[in-house]
């Protein structure tokens, strides 16, 4: 019944394939070209001479260190978010009274705070706390701004746990802490995973916080490294695009080995 081929959709998706595919092809193609052939032949050509020198240039410039910093920021952000958002969600879902309802509303509103708009006072706070030009200066604000989505996603997952399970555990005399560890966390694993992926991507993608909160080379993360590359290697376009390609390697590995989790995480972040 629905199997009649949809030619219109076929043509449209082929067009979209070109829009997605051509820039990606140009990216990879340029990254493996020597600079001389690139200036002759442009980004969209058949590769004539393949070289990996561009990647060597990128690695020599300290790019691996930037990747490592980004990984540290992402890991610490996820740890802080989970440590704080899981108990909040638990209180929101299982607690009662206007206070816990207020907590939920607060994070719902928090969803609307653009990090951009509060960057000036945040800069001041990070300075006062002595975290300027340290990775903590990136981690703490990134974690704070990942909290609203994480609380919404995790409390959404916790709401699906049947009330009778709580009652059974409560009748057995389990305290809230035990219920959280033995019942709530295991049963809301998937929403916790979604929140982790979301927070990690925030940290991974973050540009504004690193730009404002750090300045030295030892605290540079990948996104900022790319930004500085533009001014340093502006003329060496193949090396620049090799850096772009390398910046995607960690998440490409995640995509290859945990595609389902990644896709589900992104879908879940949209809220249902």
């Amino acid at each position, binding site marked *: 019944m629905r199997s009649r081929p949809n030619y219109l959709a076929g043509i449209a998706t082929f067009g*979209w394939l070109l829009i997605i595919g051509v820039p990606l092809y140009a990216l990879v193609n340029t990254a493996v070209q020597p600079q001389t052939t690139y200036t002759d032949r442009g980004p969209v050509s058949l590769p004539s001479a393949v070289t990996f020198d561009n990647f060597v240039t990128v690695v020599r410039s300290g790019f691996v260190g930037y990747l490592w910093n980004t990984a540290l920021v992402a890991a610490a952000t996820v740890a802080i978010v989970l440590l704080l958002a899981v108990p909040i969600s638990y209180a929101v879902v299982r607690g009662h009274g206007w206070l816990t309802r207020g907590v939920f509303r607060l994070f719902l509103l928090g969803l609307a705070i653009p990090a951009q708009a509060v960057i000036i006072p945040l800069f001041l706070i990070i300075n006062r706390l002595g975290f300027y030009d340290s990775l903590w200066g990136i981690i703490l604000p990134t974690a704070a701004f990942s909290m609203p989505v994480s609380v919404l996603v995790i409390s959404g997952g916790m709401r699906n746990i049947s009330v009778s399970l709580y009652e059974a555990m409560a009748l057995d005399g389990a305290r809230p802490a035990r219920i959280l560890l033995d019942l709530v966390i295991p049963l809301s694993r998937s929403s916790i995973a979604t929140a982790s992926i979301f927070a990690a991507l925030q940290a991974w993608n973050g540009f504004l916080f690193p730009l404002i909160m750090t300045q030295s080379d030892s605290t540079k993360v990948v996104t900022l490294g790319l930004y500085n590359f533009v001014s340093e290697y502006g003329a060496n376009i193949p090396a*620049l*695009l090799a850096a772009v390609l390398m910046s995607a390697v960690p998440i490409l590995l995640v995509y290859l080995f945990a595609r389902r989790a990644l896709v589900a995480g992104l*879908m879940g972040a949209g809220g249902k």
Partner: protein
Amino acid sequence: MVSVTSSRLVRNREARRATLALERPGVAWAVPGLLFFAVFALAPMAGVVYLSLTSWDGLSAPQFTGLHNWSRFLSDGQMWQSTLVTAVLLVGNIAVQAPISILLGVWSAGHQRNRAVLSAIFFLPLLLSTAATAVMWRQLLDPNFGVPAELAGLLGSANLLGSQGGAVACLVLVTSWQFIPFHTLLYQGAARTVPETLYQAAAIDGAGRARQFFHITLPQLRNTIVTSTTFMLVGGLTTFDIVLLLTNGGPGTDTSILPFTMYQTAFRTYDYGYASVIASFLLLLATGASFVMVKLSGYDKMTSTLEGM
């Protein structure tokens, strides 16, 4: 007798509820997270409104100047232009992204093998960070070495980023290229939850593909349309990295959208007071947009009926 048993029942139930209530986690569980969020998100929000009432260069103490910055903001022609460009970009981004991601999302919700393979390819732009995407496109759009150099005859001019219209179009193109995959995912997930029986019934009634799309799929996607559009709206209000890396606000100040102007005012010319006005204005716009979306989608109602279960 009846009343005695029923009151005992009530008492029993109350006793049971009391013991269960005792076992509920208190607000204390939320306190560490709340404090953290207050320090790094709520306090800065109050801070930015306060700073907008001061004159501050970042070194000496802020001087309270009342509404001076605000009246300056209202009479600043550059700010009106920034607001206008921001609005044009927002509308352009939504007008391009929403239809394409709805169509792609519905299409990729089908379970055919070729659709699964193509969807995996369409996902790829999401693997690049926004900064990486912008850096890549900056090179691809380069008037001397990029793609326009080869298509100069077709495009009229190779320097696409050299005019305001061209620069705005490029910003929409690059933003859409990066974010359509994300919105497609949202619609794909939602389209898969539309009951198949609706389509079967429509097909029996003789409704064609287009009618099915407009009368079943679109209405069923209503909530996702609201969510996804709000993401585009709030995200668009704060797009900063793409502008900084792709056009740097140029040509001239032609694409200096509000977030970019705010960044320049604060961290290039060190006029933190005036920058805080722009920031407060952004905050107002974003909060307003998300308030409207929460009302439209009924998100707040949905959660409050489930609370405390």
